[in-house]
């Protein structure tokens, strides 16, 4: 097999595989390199599954809205695998006036961006989701939000891209990128294999940082470890994506019945980057958050917990684009913990960026240029 391809994608997560799929669909030769032995073993398989527009940064909102309108509804059909997309709306809950103030701010921001989102009172929230605690006084509500299964979505893109001829190599960690006559032309993996390309897309989560550094690019990211839990199956109770003003927890009930909840516990990262250990307190903290809003779930049994790393950008929005300094290179990283919901559209945009096509949406706000010193 040739070690040369039109596009080399570094990272087989949801976004990398989405890009591979959209490129392979256009009959462009694609090679995808994945550091891990497993496809989608990073944040793509470890997140809470939100397909959310509400609460997004104004820069990200158009992407999220585009995805919900154009990509998610047909994704299962297009990829030939049920990805459990459920457009059940998003409830973000508040218990105090201060909470409501935060929610109002988020709502105003999204409404300004054209999203159907509004504040609702306890009664209306309770009609939407009858299991709320009586302590809730109001919520923001976005009826077009939802959730999907991140494991299935990631593997569905992988499976479909592979079927269309995208070449996948796992266990292939890129050590460095190499420039030739001013253009980035090849990647060298840890075992010394050289992969040449017309254009590369670096979409490797936090690991993108050290790969990009080999050609002099520096993305200001922090690795953050998040913990998630999943419960036993339960009869279907509600379809909404849930969150709170204070981000005590977030999550949903999956279509197969188990509840998936993530949360933070206020402890700084304690693990070395790359380890996916858990704290002894994370699940407890998340459970207290959940029970505080959904007391009915308190008897539900947790069967598993896990953790995953977020590539949190200094300004908490992604970096996507073709930096001027490095012709031949497209970046897609620093999705800051909200990449899954926009993974199909991000993959589409990266595929367009990498092939010089006009992008479906304006991506200038995500440009690498924003970190350049202003003169």
């Amino acid at each position: 097999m040739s070690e040369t391809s039109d596009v080399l994608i570094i990272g087989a997560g949801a976004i990398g595989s989405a890009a591979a799929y959209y490129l392979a669909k256009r009959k462009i030769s694609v090679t995808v390199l994945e550091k891990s032995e497993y496809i989608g073993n990073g944040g793509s398989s470890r997140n809470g599954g939100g397909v959310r527009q509400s609460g997004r940064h104004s820069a990200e909102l158009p992407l999220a809205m585009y995805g919900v309108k154009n990509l998610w509804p047909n994704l299962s059909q297009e990829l030939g695998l049920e990805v459990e997309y459920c457009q059940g709306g998003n409830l973000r809950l508040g218990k105090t006036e201060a909470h409501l103030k935060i929610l109002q701010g988020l709502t105003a921001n999204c409404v300004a961006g054209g999203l159907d989102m509004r504040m609702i009172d306890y009664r209306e929230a309770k009609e939407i989701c009858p299991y709320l605690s009586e302590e809730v006084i109001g919520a923001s509500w976005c009826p077009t939000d939802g959730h999907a299964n991140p494991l299935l979505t990631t593997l569905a893109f992988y499976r479909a891209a592979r079927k269309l001829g995208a070449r996948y190599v796992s266990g292939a960690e890129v050590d460095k990128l190499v420039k030739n006559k001013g253009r980035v032309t090849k990647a060298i993996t840890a075992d010394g294999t050289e992969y040449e390309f017309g254009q590369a897309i670096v979409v490797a989560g936090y690991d993108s940082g050290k790969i990009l550094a080999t050609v002099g690019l520096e993305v200001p990211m922090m690795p953050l470890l998040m913990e998630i839990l999943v419960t036993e199956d339960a009869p279907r109770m509600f379809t909404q994506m849930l969150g709170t003003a204070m981000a005590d927890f977030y999550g949903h009930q999956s279509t197969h019945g188990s509840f998936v909840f993530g949360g933070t516990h206020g402890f700084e990262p304690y693990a070395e980057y790359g380890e996916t250990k858990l704290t002894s307190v994370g699940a407890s903290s998340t459970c207290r958050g959940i029970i505080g809003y959904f007391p009915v779930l308190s008897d539900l049994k947790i069967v598993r917990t896990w953790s995953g790393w977020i590539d949190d950008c200094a300004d908490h929005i992604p970096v996507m684009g073709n930096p001027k300094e490095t012709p031949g290179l497209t970046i897609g990283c620093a999705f800051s913990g909200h990449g899954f919901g926009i993974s199909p559209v991000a993959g589409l945009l990266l595929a367009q960026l990498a092939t010089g096509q006009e992008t479906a949406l304006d991506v200038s706000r995500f440009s690498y240029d924003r970190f350049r010193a202003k003169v």
Partner: protein
Amino acid sequence: MTLERNRDFGDYVPAPDDDLVICRCEEVTKGEIRQAVRDGMFNVHEVRRLLRCGMGLCQGRTCAKLVKAIIARELNLPAPSLLDATARAPMRPVEMKVFANEKGL
């Protein structure tokens, strides 16, 4: 280990026991596992993420070795060469209210 994933398995030959339930909790069959391997799921992690075998109430404590053996056979590899799923807390199902009620910190 570097793994090229664009492997040609040839035509799927149905086996008489394809309908056999392997994961008792999530009711995943042998045929589904075999098909998943052919769809590019080359290890225990990917197969379980795709099919949920080993993700049910018992968390694979019953079927893990069976699933591994089927994947290995389909890939024509020795079964021990495949890694198991990661072990995660809680070791037994624990109610949210119990987790929420921490003592001894």
